[in-house]
C-alpha cells in the first residue's frame, strides 16, 4: 500500500529538519576547530632528534668533532623527499656509529631549488645554526616534511619546530632568517655546490678531512655509507 503523499512529505520535512540540525552541529564544531589559532602545531620526531644529537658538538653547519679524521658533506634541499628519507633512515645510524665516536664530521650545505617552500625552511635551519642547532632543525623539518610546494613551510610550523628544540631560542632563530650572516652562509653553500658540480639532491662528498673528496649520489643505504666511511678511516 503506497503511503499518502501528505504523510510522506511530513516525514520528509521532519527528517530534513533533523538532518539540518545535525549538519549545523557538525559545521559549528568544524568552525570552532578551524578558528582555534592558539592550537600548537604538532611536531613529530622531537624526542628522537634530541636523543640522537644531544651532546654532539655543532658549529654552524658542521656536526661532530672538528678534528674528526673523515668529513662527509651533504647537499640537500629541505623539500626534497629523498633528502628526508636519508635524513631519517641513514643519518641517525651514521651519527650513532661514526659522529658520536668522533670518527666523522658531517657538513650541511643547504640548497633551495625545489621551489618557494625551500628557501624559508633553509633560512630557518641556517639561522638555527647560529645557535649551534642547525642539525636539530633540519632533522625536524625532514620529520615534518610536506608535499613539495604546497605551502607547507609556514612560519607557524618553523616556529613550532624551533620551540621543540631544547636550548634553542625560537624567536631569535625566526628573527635571524633574513640576516646578512644567513645570506652569506647560503651563498657559501651555493658556491660550494657550483664548484662541486652538484646537479641533484641529496648528493654527498666524502673524504679524509682536508683531503680530496669523492661524490656519492642519492639516498644511499647505511651499508653503502659504512663501506665508504670505513674505507676512508682505514687510510
Amino acid at each position, binding site marked *: 500500500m*503506497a503511503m499518502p503523499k501528505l504523510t510522506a512529505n511530513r516525514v*520528509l520535512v521532519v527528517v530534513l529538519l533533523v538532518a539540518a540540525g545535525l549538519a549545523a552541529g557538525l*559545521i559549528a564544531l568544524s568552525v570552532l576547530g578551524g578558528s*582555534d589559532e592558539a592550537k600548537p602545531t604538532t611536531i613529530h620526531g622531537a624526542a628522537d632528534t634530541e636523543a640522537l644529537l644531544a651532546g654532539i658538538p655543532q658549529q654552524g653547519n658542521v656536526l661532530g668533532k672538528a678534528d674528526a679524521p673523515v668529513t662527509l658533506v651533504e647537499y640537500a634541499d629541505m623539500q626534497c623527499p629523498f633528502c628526508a628519507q636519508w635524513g631519517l633512515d641513514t643519518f641517525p645510524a651514521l651519527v650513532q656509529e661514526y659522529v658520536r665516536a668522533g670518527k666523522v664530521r658531517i657538513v650541511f650545505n643547504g640548497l633551495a631549488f625545489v621551489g618557494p617552500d625551500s628557501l624559508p625552511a633553509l633560512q630557518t635551519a641556517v639561522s638555527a645554526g647560529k645557535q649551534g642547532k642547525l642539525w636539530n632543525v633540519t632533522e625536524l623539518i625532514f620529520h615534518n616534511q610536506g608535499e613539495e610546494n604546497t605551502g607547507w613551510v609556514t612560519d607557524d610550523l618553523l616556529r613550532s619546530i624551533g620551540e621543540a628544540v631544547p636550548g634553542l631560542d625560537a624567536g631569535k632563530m625566526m628573527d635571524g632568517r633574513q640576516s646578512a650572516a644567513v645570506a652569506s652562509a647560503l651563498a657559501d653553500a651555493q658556491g660550494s655546490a657550483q664548484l662541486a658540480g652538484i646537479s641533484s639532491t641529496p648528493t654527498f662528498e666524502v673524504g679524509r678531512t682536508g683531503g680530496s673528496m669523492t661524490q656519492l649520489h642519492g639516498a644511499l643505504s647505511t651499508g653503502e655509507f659504512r663501506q665508504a666511511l670505513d674505507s676512508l678511516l682505514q687510510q
Partner: protein
Amino acid sequence: MTDRRWRTAVGVLALVGLGIASYLTYARYSGGTPYCVAGGGGCETVQRSDYAKVAGIPVAVLGLCGFAALLATAFVSGRTAAAVGVGIAVAGAAFSAWLLYAQLALIDAVCQWCVANDVVIALAAVAAVARLRQSP
C-alpha cells in the same frame, strides 16, 4: 523509478562513497598523502588543515561511518530505513557543502577525493529523498 530501484541507487552510491572514505582514512592513518590525480598537492594541504577534523575525529572517519550507515539503510526495506537514510545523506551533503566552501575560501586548496565524495553524497541525498517519497 520504483522504491526498489532507489534503494539500489542509494546502496551503490553509499558503496562508492565508502570506498573513497576508506582510502582517505587509510591515507590519514598510514601517514601517507592522498594521491592527487591532477597533481598540485591539494589533498596534503587539506589533510593538514584544521578543517580535516571535527571535535578531534578525522573527517575521513566521519565519512566512513556515514557511508557505512547509509549502506546499511539500503539493505532494509520500509519507510523508517528510508527516513534514516535521508537524515544521514542530507546531513552529510550539507556538511560536505560546508567543507567544499572551507576548501575554496578558507584553506585555498582543493582535495579531489573530497570533491568526489561531495558529488557522491549529493547524489545519494537525492536518491534517498526519492526513495522516501516512493516508500511503501
